[in-house]
Each structure stands twice: as C-alpha cells, then as structure tokens.
C-alpha cells in the first residue's frame, strides 16, 4: 500500500538507446531519480539533451532499453500493451505544444474521450467534461471544433482532457510553446493551481527558464544525463 507522500515515479538506472541506421544513439544514460506525489517538476535542457525522451520513457509512451521504472508503485516494464494503455488512461494525462486535440471532435467530445476510453459511463463523462470546461471558463466552446478555437483555448481544452480522469501525473511537453505570453501565464497559473489545490503531480518539459520558474523542482539535463536536480525558487 502506498502512502500519500510515496514516490509516484521511481526510475532506476534508466537507459534509452535508439538504433539508427549505422550507429546507436544513447538518448538517456543511466538515469536514476524519484518524484514524489504532488511535486511540480520542470525538466530543462538544451536541444538534444534528452528531455523529451525522458518524458516519453517515464510516461510509458516509449519503451526503455534498460533499467527499472516504477510508476505509482507499479513496474511498468512488465506490463503488456493493453494493461499499460489502461494504466496510462487512469494514471496519466498529457498536454503537448501542438495541443493534439482530435480535429473531428468538438471541445466537449475531446474532454469526454479519455473518460470513455477509461470506460466511465456516458452520462458521467459528459457532466464531468462540462464541469471542467466551465471551471476553465471555456464552456461556450463546448460545441466547437478545435479549428474554430484559438491556440490558448485549445490548450485549455487539452488541459481539461488531460485531467478528466483525475490522473496521478500530468505530463506537459512545452505546453506554452505555441501561445502568446499572456495566455502562457494563464496556462501556467492553471497548472500551478492544479498542483497546489488537487495535489496533482506535474512534470513539465520546457526550454524556457521563465516557464520553469513555475515549478518547485528543476531538473537540468545535458547529453542524456541529469546535470543537476534542485528545488527551483519561485
């Protein structure tokens, strides 16, 4: 049984190697770290430092080459596709730079979708989705398709979608990369509130120091290794 303050992510000697045509590229080298429940962690580093690979591997979007990875106490490496998918569905939410909303679905349907995938009832999914859109002050956009929304609104819908299943971890990959500074601030404040009020663990990948300042802990990466890991000041 896990206690409230248990580690939500425990990575031991994680290595990720990409087999390219002629050579092997080591993207992550022997990474070991722990992230506690309710932490807001920013991963920073220059281009090619391995921060996105780190996010992909830790979030089970990509396989690790070696090492041990425990998420919420579960050894994810031993899971098959179906159980890993189910695990992701319940335990994780994602937001990306390109919002990645499903273009043929309305904002409401986009938020409903993860709950449907997690096999929640249709009625519950709809009421929860509407409540989330309302909370984010974008209820008027419920019936509109992503192409009819601004970048900021799309990212808000993406956040609603990411937290719809009450995940343990929210992964955010350059969430403000495509939006203006005012909207970026608004989005980051939303994430801070989610972390503070709902004890949601947030792991944010960014190259922007101003954005990283919103996190409580800063991990700097270079050439596939953790260069530094310290609490960041707000």
């Amino acid at each position, binding site marked *: 049984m896990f206690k409230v303050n248990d580690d939500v992510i425990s990575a031991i000697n994680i290595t990720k190697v990409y087999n390219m045509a002629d050579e092997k590229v080591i993207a992550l080298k022997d990474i070991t770290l722990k992230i506690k429940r309710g932490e807001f962690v920013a991963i920073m580093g220059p281009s090619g430092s391995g921060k996105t690979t780190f996010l992909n591997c830790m979030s089970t*979007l990509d396989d690790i080459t070696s090492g041990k990875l425990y998420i919420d106490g579960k050894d994810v490496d031993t899971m098959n596709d179906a159980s890993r998918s189910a695990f992701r*569905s319940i335990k994780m939410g*994602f937001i990306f730079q*390109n919002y990645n909303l499903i*273009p*043929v679905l309305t904002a409401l349907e986009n938020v409903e*979708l993860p709950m449907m995938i997690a096999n929640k009832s249709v009625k519950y999914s709809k009421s929860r989705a509407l409540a989330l859109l309302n909370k984010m002050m974008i209820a008027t956009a419920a019936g509109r398709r992503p192409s009819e929304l601004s970048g900021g609104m799309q990212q808000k819908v993406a956040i609603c979608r990411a937290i719809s299943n009450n995940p343990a971890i929210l992964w955010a990959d350059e969430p403000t990369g495509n939006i203006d500074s005012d909207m970026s601030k608004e989005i980051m404040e939303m994430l801070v509130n989610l972390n503070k009020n709902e004890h949601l663990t947030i792991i944010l990948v960014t190259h922007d120091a101003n954005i990283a300042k919103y996190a409580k802990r800063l991990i700097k990466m270079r050439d596939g290794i953790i260069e530094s890991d310290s609490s960041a000041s707000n």
Partner: protein
Amino acid sequence: MIAVPVINLSIYFYSAIFIAIVFVLFLLGGSRNKTLFKLALRSFKKHKKRTALIIVGLFISSTMISSSFIIGDTAHTVINSTIYSYYGYNDISIYSSNGYSFFNYSIFKSIYQNYSNNPQIETINPLIYTSNGSAYDLTNKIPQTQINIFGLPFTNRTLTSFTYLKWYNNSSNLPSVYMDLILASTLGASPGNKIALIIPRIGYKLFILRAIVSDNYAGGVMNGDNAFISLGSAQNLTSRQDQINEIVVTMTGGIGGKPGSISLSNRMNATLAEINAFYKTDLSANPLKEEALTSTASLTGQIITLFMVLGLSSVLTGLLLIGIIFITMAEEREQEMGIMRAIGMKKRDLIKMFVMEGVLYALIAAVVGTFVGIPVSYVMIEDLVKIFSSALNVIAPSSITIVPAHLFVSILTGFTLSVLTITIASWRISNISIINAIKGTHIIEKSKKQSIITYIWYALFFIASCTALITGIDTKYLEIITLGITMLSLFMAMTVYKITRNGVVFAVLGIFYLYFWGYPDLFNNLFPKYRALNSSYMFFESGIFLITAIIFIILPNIKQIISAIARLIKSGKRLSILLLSFSYISNNRSRTSLSVAMFAFVTFSVLISAMFGAMVNSGVTSHINNITGGYNMFLASPVEIKNFTYDSYNNTTIRSGTDLFAPFMNMMVSVNVDHSNRSMSDTLFAPLDPYPFTGNFFSDNKYTFSRYSDNFKTPSSVWNALNDNPHYAIVTALPSIPLNSIIIINRNYSVKIIGIINTPAFSNTIFISNRSFNVIRSFNGRSSSVYTTALLRVNSAQIDQLSFIFKKIFVNDSLVVYNINALISQFTTVNAEFFQLIEIYMYTGLVVSIAGLGIIVFREVIKRKQEIGMLRSMGMTEKEILKVLLMEISFTSITGILIGEAASLILSYDISYNNSILEYVIPWITILEITIITYIIIILVTLLPAYKASKTAIAEAVKYTE
C-alpha cells in the same frame, strides 16, 4: 483456346502521335513555369506506391471502353467468319420466291450463256437443295431426319473442294453420297455402307457412302447433317428430271471476295424478269452473303453498346474515384497551398498545378487501361465462346480483333474523362482561403468573384435541366424527359438548401427520387406516349438515381443516425470507438458520399446482372407449364403424315411411354386484319383428334391466356368454344392485334380472336378448329402445303429412346423430334453462365473501389498519425485503434454495398413488374456472397495499413507533423 492476338503496328503510330501531342503541350505548359512543373511532378517521385494505386484506379474507364470495342470487333469478325463459312462461294443465289420450287434446267443454261463471260463471275452452278430429306443407314438401321441434301456438279471444284476424312474405293452399282462428319456420326455410317436418302412424299433411293468429308462445304449451309450427291442423282431422288431448284453464282475473288454482288443481282433480276415471263416462274437473284455482311455492322454496334453500358458503372466508379483522390490531395496540400498563395502564387496556377499532375496520371492510366482492356476482352471472349458455342452455331475466333482506331478512341476517351473530372475537382481548390489553409482548418471560404462563378454554374445547370426537359417533351424519349425532371428537381433542392441551409431538403429530394425512379409502372402512367431510346440506358439511369436517392436520404442525416446508435450503447469504451470512427465519417461528408456511391455502384452493377439472370431463369422455370403447355416433346414433319396417330399408337414403346399426344395440321398462311393492307405470315395450328390415344389438346394443354373474351368464364371454355365455332381463333401475341379483332386468313376466311395465349414457345401462331382448317385448305387447292406437328407428354426417362423410335418410324416423312425440357435446360444453363460472366465483368469496378479505398487508408493513416499517437497516450490500445479504423471503413463500404443492393432490388422489381416472363426473385445467397466477398476483399486490403497505423510508435506520433 484463342491464339495470341496479332496487333497491327499502326496502333503504335496512333498512340505515339497522341502521346507526343499531349507531352508537347505538357512540356510547353511546364516550360513557362518550371516551379509548377516541378511541383506537379514531385508527387510521382515522393509517393510511388500511391501513384501506382491512383493509376490502377484511373485506368478502368479506358479498360472498359477498349474491352467493349475489342469484344464488339471480335464479335464482328466472328459473325463475318460465320457468314463467310455459311455462304462460302454462294455469292448470289437464284431461287423461287416460293421457297425452293423446282424450275427447268434450261433456265440455268440461259443464265449461264448470259453471264458466264462476266469478269465479275467465276462460276455459275446448277443445284438441287432440300432441307427436308432423311437418311437411313441400312447397315446400322439408324435414321436421321431433316438433313440437307445437295445435288451438285462434282466436276466443279469451287463448291466441292472437300477434305476427305475417310473414303471407299471399291466400285459399286449404286450412286455415291458424300456426308459430313456430323451426319456420318449420327448414322454411325462408315464408307461403303448402303444409305437410303429419302424425300418425303416422293420416295427414296439407295446410295453407297463414298466418303466422309470435313464440314467444309462452301455453298451456303451451316455445318452438320449434310449429304452431297451428284446433280443427276438428286434429280432422280426428287423425281425432277431436267429440273433444278437453285442456281449458285460465285464471284471472283474467293470466299472473302470484293463486294459487288448487290449490283450484279440487280442486273440479273432484269434478265430473270424476262425468263420468269417466258417460263411462268418467279425466280430472283439474291445477294444473300453481301446483305448478311452489311446487316452485321449494326449488330456489332449493338454488342459494343451493350458492353459499354455494362461498363458504364465501372467508368462512373472510376470518375468518383478521381473526385476522391483530388479531394484527398487538396486536403493533404492545404497548408502548403496556403503558403504558396501567401508568397504570391495565383489561384489559376494552383489549378494548373493540379491539372498538370492530373494530366500525367490520366495519360499513363489511359494508355495502361486501354492495353489492360486487351487481356480483359480476351478472357471475356474466350468465356463467351465457351458459353455460346453449343447454343449458337458460330465459328470460334482464332484470335481477338483489335482495331487500332478503336484503341485510340479508348485512350482518348479515358484520358478526356479523367482530365475533365480532374479539372472540375481542382476547381474546388481555387476557393481556398490563404489564412485558413495555412492554419489547416479545412474551411473553404468563397470570395465574391467565386460566388458569381458559382451562380453562373447554377444558371448553366438550370438551363441544362430545362433543355433536357424540353428536348424530352419534344422527342418523346423517356430517358431525356425523366433526366430533365430529375435535374430540375435537384436544381430546386439546391436552391432551397442555399436559402435554408437545411440538409432535410436533400432527404426530401431523395424520397422523391426513390418514388420517381423506383415506383413500378410510374413512367408508363405518367408518360404513356414516351418510349425508351435504349432500355439498357434507362436501367442504368434508374440505377444511378436510385443510388443517389438513398445517399441523399442517409448521408445528410448521418449525425442523427450516429446519435441514435450512440444512445443504444452504454459502454463508454465502445462508444469512444464508435464516436471517433463516425466523427471521421461525418466530418468528411463529401468524401464519404463519394466513397459510399463508389461501392454502391459496384455492388449495384454486379447484383443487377446476377438478379437479371436469376429472374430470367426463375421466370422460365416457374412458367415452364406456360412455355411447354405441359408437354415435353415436339414433333414436326415437313409433310402431312397420313395415319400419324395410328402409326404412333401401333408401336408398343410409344404407346406405353406416352401420356398425352396432341397432333396438329399446320399450314403457312397470310393474315390481314379487318381487310387492311397490313399482311403478315402466320402458322395455322389445327388440333387433330388424338384417338386412339386418350385425352384432348383442348382440355389437356396448360397454356395460360394473357387475355380472353369477356364472353367466356374460364380458359377451358375458350378452348371449347374454338373447337365448336369455325370462326373463332386463339392466337399467340400477334403484333398490335387486339382481342376480339377479325382477321382474314389467305384473303378469304375470317375468324375472330377470342383469346391470346402468352407463351414464348410459339410465335405468330393461330389456333383454329379442324373444320376451319379444312375449309381454308380447300380454298388453296393443291398448292397448299400442309404439314404435321405434334405435342407430346412422354415418360421423361424414355425421351431419347422414343425420339429414336419416332424418327425411325417416320423417316420417310423426315419427322424431326425436339426434347422441350432439354431445350429449356440448355437455355437456362447458357443464360446462367452468361449472366455469371457479366457479373464477373462488372466486378472490375471493384478494382477501382479497392484502389480508391487503398488511397484513402494510406492517406488517412499518415494524416492521423499525431491523432493516433494522442489516442494511444490517452490509453487506447493498439486493438482499439485498429477497431476505429476498421469500423470507419466498414461503415463506408457496408453502407455503399447495402445501398447498391437496395437499388438493385428496387430496379429489378420494376423490370419484372411489366414483364410476364421475368419473375421477381431475391437471390439471398448471391446477395450474401456479394456482401461477404466484397467486404472481405475490402477488409483484407485495408487491414495492413490499418494494422501498421495501430502499431504507430506513440512518442514519435504525438510529435508528428506532415
């Protein structure tokens, strides 16, 4: 087996010129704007697999057109070869207009003297020909009736250059007979056997079988059952000393010689007029071969038209595919086109770029497709020959006929159709908004100028609709008036939609179309004075609009359908799969409509062929009593057989094996309706007393009446009235002669039509009483040629045995025996095989659909890569991603299949509604087969790309941009 075709080299000449012209134009266009040229070409290099699929999809139009031409041209060759083989050296045949009546030999001498020096003529031969003879092999005691006997001068080698297969060298006192292989086999005769040749009512003569020859007589007869004797022997056999009944004129230039027989016949007829006056004959010169060759030209056109119509649905499917391809390509390149527009490219250039690319696709596809038509038609012809060779006496082709000009037309037509569709499809691209395109929103906004162009299109469509309507009213052609009404109602619906933006208007239009094109007999009621230009075009038009009707009803309401289905599903996971797949469908409504229409047309064309064949066979089978009248054997003799019933009854096998025996006296007569000048030839059938057999034709026959006089209550009372009243007649459907009309037989005997029987077994037949028959006969005196027929119901197990016995007993009367059930069975077999072949031919459209589907799936998988990644990150499994894709494909294809099937069921019901022979049947097994086969093929084709898509690496996919 058909040999490898020999293609005339000039095809390369035609094609090379055409391709060269297109390429020059293409390069000229490209040289003016090299960027456009490069952009147009890049897709070929970048997407090789897709380019191949597009070409496969596009070439079908040219394939269908070229195969129609090749099948028609080969049929033309086959028919011509058959005519050349049938008439051989018989270019002009001189005979009596009363059939082959005999005339004096001196007439031949006179013709010979007049014309033998004519440089157009090679030889002139006197002949005796009869098709009513019999042969009897005295060794085997086997008869054959109704054989062709030719009496000809063997000294002349033009007609008798036989290939001897077996011969008899010993001397004999008997005159010689030569037989073809078929007759010799039937008789089991060997050279040296004694053969009796019999002429009914005249007698017989004995011959020695001198030789069995190959079926290569070249004097005007089909292969089979031919016996050849000298002219002198024929005169003896027919008791016509110094007489002949035909003169055969052979023109120079051999069997396939140059034409000119028609003008020569005209000159000969002038000579014959003097001869006829002198000898009191009615001889005429008939250029039968040249006339037959001339008349086949229209038949060739009809065959080409038939296959063109059959191929139209595949052509249409191909055009729909072009639409889909270009909508897909426009979506794919939306962002880059927006950027191009942003950096200064004109809308016109965008269209040019698309059309340039399309020209390349269309050109390659037209050439490839035309040449693919060669093996397609090769297979079709080989199968058609197999199916029809036994039923029709035609010469199997040794190679297929390729007319270069027709191949050129196929390339040009396929190319033009593709380019036209591409140009129209590309027009949509010009409506692109720069901002929306760069953002990739897929929203098309129209500028003021484009709106004006749209209004011009509307106006043109309205003018075209009104023109079709007015032309239809003017010409009274059903196809055109109905097209006019359909177009006009579509125009009205589009106008209402423009104002209201409510999709229900199309659903209403769909219901109207369904009623207008689907309600049986509606056109006959609405337009009683209109006629169809070509009924096959009418069926095709009906098919198109029935499919359109159902699509109009379903697709604008797809959201409501999805919502209804969604309400039934409680599981969130299942609903997520359904929601995603249906959202993709409803979001791409134009492409979905085109895809659904494409599958609908393929299914429709395949199923309608299958249903038509099934309806014919079912109709024939279930109306078997009406066709056969309950009888299974038909006997016919060219002469009146005295004591026919008694002689038959005296044979114990016949007596025990026969249930019903209905003999008739027959006579050919001329018929006038109410003393009008309109005269036609008909056959009188007067039932005879079958005693000592039991039963009676009047009460036993199972023919059904299509109509009979109100004075009679039951069909049997009609037959009884005919027996009682010498001035009544029952007829088979005579052209436009109504019930209760008075008809005048041989200008001196009037009868009233009291009933019309509707059976395809008889044509132009008048049933009258025995008494009436004898009265009519007495008017004609000796000149009336009465003959005998009989309908029998015999033990079907004994039918071959009884046939043999009948022929043997009545060999002197040249009695021929037909097994009615065998004839029907042959018909139904040929019919079923033919329609099965057509069904397979129609399946070529499936190639297009599958290519189209392949293109869509390839494209969708690339386009949705990021979305698939996102869905996987949200917890969807690989299996569920696969389900989403397959459900989407299944919905589109199954909807299309079901719409096609529904349209086939409605149209085939309409066809059968007014046709007494066709019986409406729903071939559930065929429907199931078509559904399953088509669906399995579709799933197999799409499974691999869908599976690959489901296996997409998530981390890579979520970041993917095109």
